[in-house]
């Protein structure tokens, strides 16, 4: 996706940036220094976000769009300001196309229910692929079952990219939805969103992009290439848990029925029927995670103060170093494509040491990684491994932390009497 205009307000210095994240300087309970390489699971929050959360809760906590009082006015203004920040951040045409959800999972489920169950018919096809997170597989399986639509999978190349030679065969007039992650949470694969969006639109299909991993690391512009739905989470974007976003094109959101029903999402309620509120409230039933949504706005301010050019430069340095050093480390196999095709995520195994044992031994050294199937069982079946170890970088990681990762692998191998 292309770069919206951004003007970073400070020069990038990783040591300076790290001071914005208090958790990075705190010794762990075992006394080790934290080397946090699990950003794909959840990222850390800068002071700007922590302070914002406290500001909301301590000084103007109230419900939004309800109270006719000063606190209610203030919190509503703040929430709508956050929505507008998100709108500009992903370059949506209007802020009403930004729906607050609880996270990527809910955003995708919202589309699967409110769009999928309304518009899909027997014989229609939903196109996904094996590298997707369970959150972008299971909702479509259920929707396919409920509607009679068929799930189809784009095959992967040996290095873990979508195999473009199957696009012609698989993207046809039967295709009604292409659901795809912009960045794999395991392989780091950057998928060809521009080409998939163009092909989907050529056949009259809709494209949903899972931006959980891409939005924190790459500029996102929902109008170039034009995509129909974008889902992402606050907590992987240096913001709070419990809040996420669904961007949807107005025309599609208007054609959909509500997903959850209750307060805030109605226009009029009568005994037998009701009418729906305008966007975005139509999809925001009940009380939102208010402080979290406002905190997400602060996280976006923070990211924009650094600028994606600087973020990308730092993360690329780390990725390049990891992709260079890991294969030179005895027993290590890495999965996924080469540097040009991936974001700053690397999954690997170490011969004779199970990923859980690796994670446990790394933890003794303060190195936090994820081990397991990372909510991608079909991908691990495809890789033919039961589990992998995953490192996922953020801009606040340093090259010394990549060295700490390699040292931790040697330590684990030593503990397992392999060296």
């Amino acid at each position, binding site marked *: 996706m292309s770069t919206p205009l951004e003007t970073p307000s400070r020069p990038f210095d990783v040591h300076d940036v790290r001071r914005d994240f208090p958790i990075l300087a705190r010794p*762990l*309970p*075992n*006394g*080790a220094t934290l080397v946090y390489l699990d950003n794909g699971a959840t990222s850390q929050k800068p002071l700007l976000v922590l302070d914002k959360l406290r500001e909301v809760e301590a000084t103007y906590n109230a419900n939004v769009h309800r109270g006719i009082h000063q606190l209610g006015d203030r919190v509503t203004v703040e929430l709508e300001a956050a929505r507008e920040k998100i709108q500009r951040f992903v370059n949506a045409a209007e802020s009403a196309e930004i729906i607050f959800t609880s996270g990527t999972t809910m955003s995708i489920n919202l589309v699967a229910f409110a769009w999928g169950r309304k518009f899909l018919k027997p014989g229609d096809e939903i196109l996904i692929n094996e590298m997707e997170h369970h959150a972008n597989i299971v909702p479509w399986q259920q929707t396919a079952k409920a509607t009679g639509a068929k799930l189809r999978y784009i095959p992967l190349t040996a290095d873990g990219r979508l195999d473009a030679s199957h696009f012609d065969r698989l993207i046809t007039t039967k295709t009604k939805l292409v659901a795809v992650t912009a960045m794999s949470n395991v392989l780091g694969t950057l998928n060809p969103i521009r080409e998939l969006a163009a092909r989907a639109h050529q056949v009259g299909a809709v494209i949903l992009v899972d931006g959980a991993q891409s939005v924190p690391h790459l500029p996102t512009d929902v109008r170039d290439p034009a995509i129909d739905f974008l889902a992402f989470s606050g907590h992987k974007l240096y913001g709070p848990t419990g809040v996420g976003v669904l961007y949807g094109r107005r025309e599609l959101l208007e054609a959909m029925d509500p997903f959850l029903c209750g307060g805030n999402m109605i226009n009029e309620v009568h005994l037998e029927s009701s009418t729906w509120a305008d966007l975005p409230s139509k999809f925001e039933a009940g009380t939102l995670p208010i402080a979290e949504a406002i905190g997400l706005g602060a996280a976006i301010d923070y990211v924009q103060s650094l600028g994606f050019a600087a973020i990308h430069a730092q993360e690329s340095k780390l990725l390049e170093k990891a992709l260079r050093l890991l294969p030179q480390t005895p027993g290590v196999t890495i999965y996924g494509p080469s540097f040009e095709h991936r974001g700053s995520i690397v999954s690997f195994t170490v011969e004779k*040491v*199970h*990923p*859980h*044992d690796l994670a*446990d*031994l790394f*933890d*003794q050294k303060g190195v936090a990684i994820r*081990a*397991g*199937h990372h909510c991608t*069982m079909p991908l*691990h*079946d495809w*890789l*033919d*491994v*039961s*589990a992998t170890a995953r490192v996922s970088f953020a801009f606040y990681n340093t090259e010394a932390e990549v060295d700490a990762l390699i040292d931790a692998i040697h330590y684990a191998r030593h*503990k*397992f*009497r392999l060296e």
Partner: protein
Amino acid sequence: MNEELYDDYILDHYECPYHKGHLACPTCAHSEKNPLCGDQIRIELKLNDTGHVEEAFFNGKGCAISQAAASILCQHVEGKTVDELHRFQAPDMLRLLKVPLTATRQRCGLLGFKVLKAMMYSLDASPTPPAQQPTANDESIVATSG
């Protein structure tokens, strides 16, 4: 923090497990998988007429803790009576491992124990159950658990 988790006792069992494989004619057998991490253990027992465990075998795939614990468990239960297996509880299993486990790793250390306990319940339900043979499905889980 527990630096001694991977001590020689655990690693010896992991590298050279006791009775890893299958029994020709198990009296009872059971498999379970930890869906969170994909670790999988199958336990097979041969009971004799006096209600003693004559032989215990396990098979599985997973981390050093889950696999070593299953090996230690098989060694421990041989010669025990069904009654003794009923009385054998999770803290006993954790003590057998000799290393303290954090709450998350207890799930690994107790996977084999859970399989044994589930098998004991089904043994209660039918006094002489036909041994459940490893099915194609069990084998495929062992091969590709994820």
